[in-house]
């Protein structure tokens, strides 16, 4: 490894460590802010799921968009770096999507009386989640050429994100509209925005770490093949 590469590595690890500390600090403070925030009169205590549900859903969409854009770059420029980012972001879209899909029905059971409604916002979010599960499946079990195939899927998946966002404005739906956050009660804002920021720090920490892992895995594979060619290890 060259000196400049080592320096880049050290600086990226420092950034990751700093983000990790910020996220950890956020996770210590945010629960107190959430408990201190005013209770919503109609839904009561259960409305506090909002502070987890909305950031998870936003980051799932951000993960999907990142994976889609990075996949398009990988498809057109063949950049391995873009592919590393795409697979990392796709995994995060699945993880944060799962958080949104679990917290949503828990909240819905109390607010709407049912766990699930075939409402356009819910359907398109579930669809996004399934698309990225299929992406990960294709990469893991698809064999040769599956990276490109999965990248194509991610581009289509990213096209679903604007649809999720605008769905509540176009169709009649029982899911709250996009105007909820801008018109939030001032007492709820610090808890919400700090929660959002903490989740975002966590997103970037995980993205950075997962990307690093993917790069190390690729290097390990290349070294293994080199060693095999040199006859240092058995086939």
């Amino acid at each position, binding site marked *: 490894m060259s000196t400049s590469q080592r320096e880049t590595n050290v600086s990226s690890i420092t950034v990751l460590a700093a983000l990790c500390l910020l996220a950890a600090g956020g996770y210590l403070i945010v629960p107190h802010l959430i408990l201190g925030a005013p209770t919503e009169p109609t839904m009561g205590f259960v409305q506090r799921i909002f502070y987890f549900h909305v950031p998870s859903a936003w980051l799932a969409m951000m993960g999907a968009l990142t994976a889609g854009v990075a996949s398009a770059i990988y498809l*057109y420029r063949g950049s391995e770096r873009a592919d590393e980012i795409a697979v990392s972001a796709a995994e995060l879209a699945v993880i944060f999507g799962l958080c949104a899909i679990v917290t949503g029905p828990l909240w819905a059971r109390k607010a709407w009386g049912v766990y699930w409604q075939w409402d356009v916002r819910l359907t398109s979010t579930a669809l996004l989640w399934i698309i990225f599960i*299929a992406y990960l499946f294709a990469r893991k079990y698809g064999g*040769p050429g599956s990276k490109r195939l999965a990248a194509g*899927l991610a581009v*289509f998946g990213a*096209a679903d994100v604007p649809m999720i966002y605008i769905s509540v404005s176009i169709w009649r739906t029982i899911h709250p509209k996009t105007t909820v956050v801008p018109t939030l009660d001032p007492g709820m804002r610090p808890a919400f925005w700090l929660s959002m920021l903490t989740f975002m720090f966590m997103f970037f920490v995980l993205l950075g770490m997962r990307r690093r892992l993917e790069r190390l895995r690729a290097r390990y594979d290349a070294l293994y093949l080199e060693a095999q060619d040199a006859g240092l290890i058995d086939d």
Partner: protein
Amino acid sequence: MSFVGQVALLLWKDIRVEARAGELIYATGLFASIVVLLFSFSFLGGSPPTVEVMAGVLWVALALSGMLGISRSFERERESDTLRAILLSPTPRAALYLSKLLSMALLMLIVVVVVLPGLLLLFGMRVDGGEAWLRLFALLGLGIIGFSSVAALFGAALGRARVREILLPLLVYPLVVPVLLAGARGTYAVLYGTPEALVDASRWIKFLLAFDALSVTCGLWLFEPLCGHE
């Protein structure tokens, strides 16, 4: 040769291959009729199925049988390496994609020819008036194009991937959920038949039109990077 001429020539090639082999037409048609029969058996004895059920059966049968035919069609190309041969020729990728899209759409049209009379006969489905029929055909036509646009892209891009027979439906079905949803909701509105319901059906036709425009554009854009490495 003009672009349209190339598309037509490639499509004619697919039609001639199928006319000689006959494999896909019979297998897909037979499978579609079995699917409709299975659905009709599962609703035997009870009260007559509602229009929601009929609309769902139509689109699920279309999706299942269409996928079977499309999957087999690409497998045949792979066995004889014909797709690779065309990719090696200087044919524009867009012409190849559009010809595949159209041949898949023709295959799905066969499914419609089997499934629709099956529903009219076995489920007592009724479509009242020319306007309703027109809307139903528009929904089916646009739905088939939307489905084929995604299936043609990923079917051709599968290449030498492992678990192809599982991978294709796994990649295509999540992406065509909007088509199935719009198709089923639109068909329900057509079968319901009131003037308000027909207006609703027109809305779903517009939705399918927008989906088709988006997916064909994405398909044309992605075909080269996805299949160029075959």
